[in-house]
């Protein structure tokens, strides 16, 4: 599994030559340097140190300041970054060769000790970093020589490389961490194309080009991240030119922006699946026919077209396409929208229409309780309302209990969970099926320890996901995950609704930008302004 360190030659020289020859026919390709990119987004970071911040508002910023050993590109393929090559030398040990001559923003060199410092701080610190749980059995690093470092795991761990490519695994400058203490969290120092300048809470974060960057230096002079919580205000800022880039643009304005040559809409298929979970141990949902009936009752097309309005894709299973190990469940063929079939399945399970249209069995109404929050995932509240109305159309009465996210979260994590249904989303942030299938569907991953909120239990699925977790043979892993998803598709304990799209709207003058499918990355190192 050796990877070469070859990198693309810079196109700059060629372009410069082309320009010199007066090749003005391709002005779009003429990269300009300089300028300030202003980005508006809804929330301020919690911190700019992955040790304290695992949510996107912080990661968007620090993913431009810190770099990991391995990079994951827009196609979700792994590439060398701070490591030039790696070898799996035992089932629990991977040896990395570091890129020579790399310096942190504070001038200190990147070496094996810095990698060890970063991983030890995250995994064994007091307390460990907030992303430590995501790292699975990752145990730490050992220095071999100045530019060689071994990353070790406590047991064989299939997703190890993807775990090291996580946005959180960015290597930090040990000197700066020691010097700044807890203040590092507001002035991070890494090796990335941008260095930190200033953060005024709830106003702006400013970054500037790192002049001594080891790779292609960023074309932009500065990046300013501003906070605008209101969607309407963000869109106006884009139109007035107050902002060059909008994160979380208003879905219904995208069509107009696409038509307007002054703007550009960038999108990628995201890694989050938003779903209505079903509690498989709670009657009547312990009957697979009732669960299937609910799946048949939901008109995904209508929801996608009218509520998400092109801002998401229909879910194709419990994983997002692009995730390592994804297999298309073909839900549209397995569970097509068909009210007749839904009612027939309910009838098989003994439920028949009562006087008010709600199904009944032995005098008992088919009433389901539903725990939901609003505003946690795009349009989650609207989806809950729409699905509730659709279930009503097949005689299932769903009673939604709305909770603010923090209290809903506690209940989701709680045991027992006394609701039949719940609206949730799950992002496979490591881009490996392991970080979804294992915590969500393994029978021992019940809350509060894990996230098997559906209380799904299938011994074969347990075996498959365990095996895949421990295997380092990626081909074998892919096959194991495929089989697990086939089984899940038959037992279906979710009503998968949509797969996120990562959408960013910019002014047309913003060039060289590509949306990353992992919602935590916002790569700005190649962005330039054409004005």
């Amino acid at each position, binding site marked *: 599994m050796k990877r070469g360190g070859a990198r693309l030659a810079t196109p700059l020289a060629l372009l410069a030559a082309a320009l010199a020859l007066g090749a003005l026919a391709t002005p779009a390709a003429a990269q300009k340097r300089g300028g300030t990119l202003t980005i508006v987004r809804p929330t301020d970071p919690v911190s700019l140190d992955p040790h304290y911040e695992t949510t996107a508002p912080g990661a968007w910023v620090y993913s431009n300041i810190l770099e990991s050993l391995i990079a994951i590109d827009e196609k979700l393929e792994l590439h060398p970054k701070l490591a030039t090559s790696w070898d799996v030398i035992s089932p629990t040990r991977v040896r990395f060769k570091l890129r020579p001559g790399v310096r942190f923003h504070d001038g200190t060199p990147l070496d094996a000790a810095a990698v060890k410092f970063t991983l030890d701080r995250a995994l064994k610190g007091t307390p460990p970093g907030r992303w430590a749980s995501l790292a699975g059995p990752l145990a730490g690093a050992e220095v071999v020589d100045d530019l060689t470092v071994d990353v070790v795991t406590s047991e064989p761990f299939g997703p190890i490389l993807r775990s090291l490519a996580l946005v959180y695994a960015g290597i930090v400058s040990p000197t700066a961490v020691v010097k700044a203490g807890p203040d590092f969290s507001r002035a991070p120092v890494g090796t990335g194309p941008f260095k930190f300048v200033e953060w005024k809470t709830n106003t702006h974060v400013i970054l500037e080009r790192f002049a001594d960057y080891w790779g292609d230096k960023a074309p932009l002079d500065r990046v300013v991240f501003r906070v605008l919580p*209101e*969607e*309407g205000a963000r*869109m*106006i800022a884009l139109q007035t030119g107050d902002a060059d880039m909008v994160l979380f643009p*208003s879905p*219904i*304005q995208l069509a*107009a922006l696409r038509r307007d040559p002054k703007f550009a809409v960038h999108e990628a298929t995201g890694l989050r699946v938003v779903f209505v979970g079903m509690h498989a141990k709670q009657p009547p949902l312990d009957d697979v026919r009732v669960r299937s009936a609910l799946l048949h009752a939901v008109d995904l097309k*209508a*929801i996608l*077209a*009218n*509520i998400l309005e092109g801002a998401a894709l229909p879910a194709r299973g419990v994983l997002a396409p692009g995730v390592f190990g994804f297999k298309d469940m073909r839900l549209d063929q397995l569970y097509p929208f068909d009210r007749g079939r839904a009612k027939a399945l309910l009838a098989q399970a003994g439920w028949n229409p009562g006087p008010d249209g709600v199904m009944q069995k032995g005098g008992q109404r088919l009433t389901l309780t539903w725990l939901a929050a*609003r*505003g946690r995932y795009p349009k989650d*509240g*609207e989806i809950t*309302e*729409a699905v509730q*109305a659709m279930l009503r159309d097949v005689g299932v009465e769903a009673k*939604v*209990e*709305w*909770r*603010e996210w*923090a*209290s809903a979260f506690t209940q989701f994590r709680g045991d027992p969970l006394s609701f039949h249904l719940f609206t949730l989303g799950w992002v496979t942030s490591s881009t490996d099926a392991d970080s979804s299938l294992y915590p969500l569907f393994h029978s021992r991953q019940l809350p509060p320890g894990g996230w098997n909120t559906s209380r799904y239990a299938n011994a074969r699925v347990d075996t498959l996901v365990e095996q895949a977790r421990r295997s380092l043979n990626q081909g074998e892993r892919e096959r194991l995950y495929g089989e697990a998803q086939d089984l899940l598709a038959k037992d279906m304990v979710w009503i998968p609704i949509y797969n996120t799209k990562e959408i960013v709207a910019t002014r047309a003058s913003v060039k060289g930008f590509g949306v990353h499918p992992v919602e935590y990355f916002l790569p700005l190192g190649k962005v330039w302004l054409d004005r």
Partner: protein
Amino acid sequence: MSADAARRFGRNRLALLGLALVAGLVLVAAAAPLLAPQDPVKQSLFEKRARPDAKHLLGADEFGRDILSRVIYGTRVALLVGTLAAAIAVVAGGALGCVAGFAGGWLDATIMRGIEILLAFPYLLLAIAIVSALGPGVVNTTIAVGVWGTPTVARMVRASVLALKETEYVRAARALGAGGPALVLRHILPNVLPTLCVYATLFMANAVLVEAALSFLGLGVQPPTPSWGLMVSTGRDVLLVAPHVATMPGLAIVVSVLGFNLLGDGLRDALDPRLRGA
């Protein structure tokens, strides 16, 4: 209201306008099922954000629900939240204020410190606490709004009681041996009542706005219940593309708040002869 006060009220054009608006709201609320052309919670996704037309006179919202019907049914929610919240604030605040003002001493001091704590306490946390403990919904939102108004009423009533306590006829009643509760009921309460009525009316206006604010933060009345605040707050995201979604419920809020305010102002002017116009 004395005949004198009624006459003063009748001469006040703005007050009459307020009364008319509030009466109109009550009528609409009572006759909602007759007036609303459609089921206010019936979704029809393909008609989402439909512009006003023959089928949807005021257009449709993001679920294709008829906005006119929702605005009409929303009157019920607004009046319910307003009236009930005002009742909670007036009863709880009135009781606390009376006791504090009349008892004096350590009881007064304790109650007033409690009121100060409540005033300095972040209101939103209180709302979240109530909503998390009881779940969001019309009734719980109402409780949150009512509790919000309680300290102000308590302070106001206490001040009036303190002033009344020193008036000659209360002193006389006391000298004649009237006990505490009897004094409060017979002499003090009737004197505080007009102020409370005025306050309650003005508070109803506030209650509608506070409910809207809670909805904005996701802590108010929950869909599909047609609450104006909720409708404006969800419609604001499409303000530029489909302004009608948020505008009609917004106007409904303005009209009702205006009505309650004009009525409250008018009542105060009428009940307090010193404020009679030139």
